[in-house]
């Protein structure tokens, strides 16, 4: 096996993020239920956040708070965490918007399963 166990363990964050990304993508694209799609979207976004944060991590470094006593030290990169905060806000707004749209769709169609909605729409379009 060319694959080094060390390689996997050291990079487990990235591999985990990728696996989560694919799971989220699969969920969004295949499940017919709209709420599950939104959940899948959230999983995808969580995967990205995980990826981003693990970029910033430096091994053997401390949290990025400057303590004048201890002097120069290796800090974990604070920038990705800041970006993730923005990302989380964005994810929440998209989820909120999507959920309100789902409420409206339910009021209009009576169902939130995509196949049934497609059936209702194709019946309407053929008129």
């Amino acid at each position, binding site marked *: 096996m060319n694959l080094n166990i060390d390689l996997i363990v050291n990079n487990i964050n990235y591999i985990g993020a990728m696996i989560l*990304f694919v799971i989220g*993508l699969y969920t*969004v694209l295949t499940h017919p239920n*709209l709420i599950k*799609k*939104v959940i899948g*979207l959230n999983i*995808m*976004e969580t995967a*990205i956040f995980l*990826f*981003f944060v693990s*970029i910033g991590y430096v091994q053997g470094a401390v949290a990025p708070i400057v303590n004048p006593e201890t002097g120069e030290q290796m800090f974990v990169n604070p*920038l*990705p965490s800041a*970006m993730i905060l*923005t*990302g989380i806000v*964005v994810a929440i*707004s*998209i989820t909120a*918007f*999507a959920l309100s*749209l*789902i409420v*409206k*769709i339910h009021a*209009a*169609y009576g169902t939130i399963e995509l196949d049934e*909605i497609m059936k209702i*729409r194709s019946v*309407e379009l053929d008129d």
Partner: protein
Amino acid sequence: MISYHFPVFILMLLLGFAVVIPLHRKPFGKSFVVKMFSVLGLAFILAFAELLVVIYGEAYSYTFGSYQGGIGIEFLVDEFSALMTLVVITLSILILAYSVKDLEHEIASSKMYSYYTLVFLMLFSIIGMIFTNDIFNLYVFVEALSITSVAIIAIKNKKDTLMASMKYLLMGAIGSVTVLMGFALIYMVTGHLNMSLIFAEINEVWEQYPINILLAMGFILTGFGIKAAIFPLHNWLPDAHSSAPTPSSALLSGLVVKAYVFSIAKMMYRVIGQEITINIGISDYILVFAVLSMVMGSLFALSQTDIKRRLAYSSVAQIGYIFLGLGLGTELGLSAALFHVISHAFMKSALFLSAGSIIYYTGNRNVRKMDGIGYKMPITMAVFTIGVLGMIGIPGTSGFMSKWYLGLAVLDGGHPELLIVILLSSFLNALYYLPVVVSAFLRETPLEMHRSSLPQSMKISMAVVGLGSVVIGFYPSMIMNIIEAAVSTFIGI
């Protein structure tokens, strides 16, 4: 390099007004319209001043709070950004002038204020996306644009609108997430978020971490491709653009999609640079999908009977033209693509606005039933005909000039067979647009019904958009000179 504050003024003006709108108590009326147009007029003056400053001066970079590029956010104001901002504000003035009367029939009157809030936020994000020089800032604006552009579709509470906006939202969100992944990969290897600094680093990094860069470009292209409606990923576009209220369709087709294409152009040329793009074959990849878009978009449009759906598929084909210009990888190609961005914005807005007027006047969306409308609504059909002639490529309209430049770029870039594709696509355009014009003018009217007569504001705004398209067609050099100056800074910086 003197740095003027115009970009920030424009953005703050739009954002400020957007925030202030919900505070209005009185029902939607004249006073609000006056306020809105004065704000837009001010923004127009600022954008025009910006353009003059940049043309007679030079491109400059604007930093926020005097934090330099690597630490703070930077706006790079070059000629094309200023021009594009001016086009965005001009078109939005015209489309919003149209919308004041048109929306009474389409959305509930309690939602009018919300609509304008969303439109202003959308304009804010488009202009932000055009100016920004920082990839994470780009991501933030992309998200803001994503949500607001879905919202201006969903605000019309009909069944098909809701489903279409859901689809757009989900696919758009997938796109954004993919893009963010790409940005993460780039940040991982270069450690910068500022586009110019990334470009400086990228050549060394390319030797060490090629896979990262490749994966990043792959994700970014696919993600932005979903939002910009490249061929196989375009399925949200026909539903979204056809079921939306008319001003939203015009704004979406004309401005929003172009903002994403412009971001792809920025990524390709400003971040990873022209050489790497050509070396790894991204240009050829885009070319394949551009050709598919051009042909398949037109083929799909042939079989639609709803006029707005036909226009939406035509948008897919026209965006294929822009990608063709981008995918050539030469300066001539990039200028032709940017020229088409502006000319298509005018033409497609003219087409959507006149189609909306037809729907407003007759309540009928079916293309087969448009016999004889030309005599009832001469101005509308005249604007529609101008748009159609532009799409086919008759000299005297801006569409012809963009086909001309694209043709020259294609031949210059060494792909002469693509010329046949461009002309085939023009012919297909004629096949599905001409029957509408012919039946409108040359057949007799079977029915006499009309819903309500067309308000003056709608007629005037449509006419001005059509006129703009013709003016660009007769004097393309005023825009082309600006674009060519911009391209050299674009590829250089």
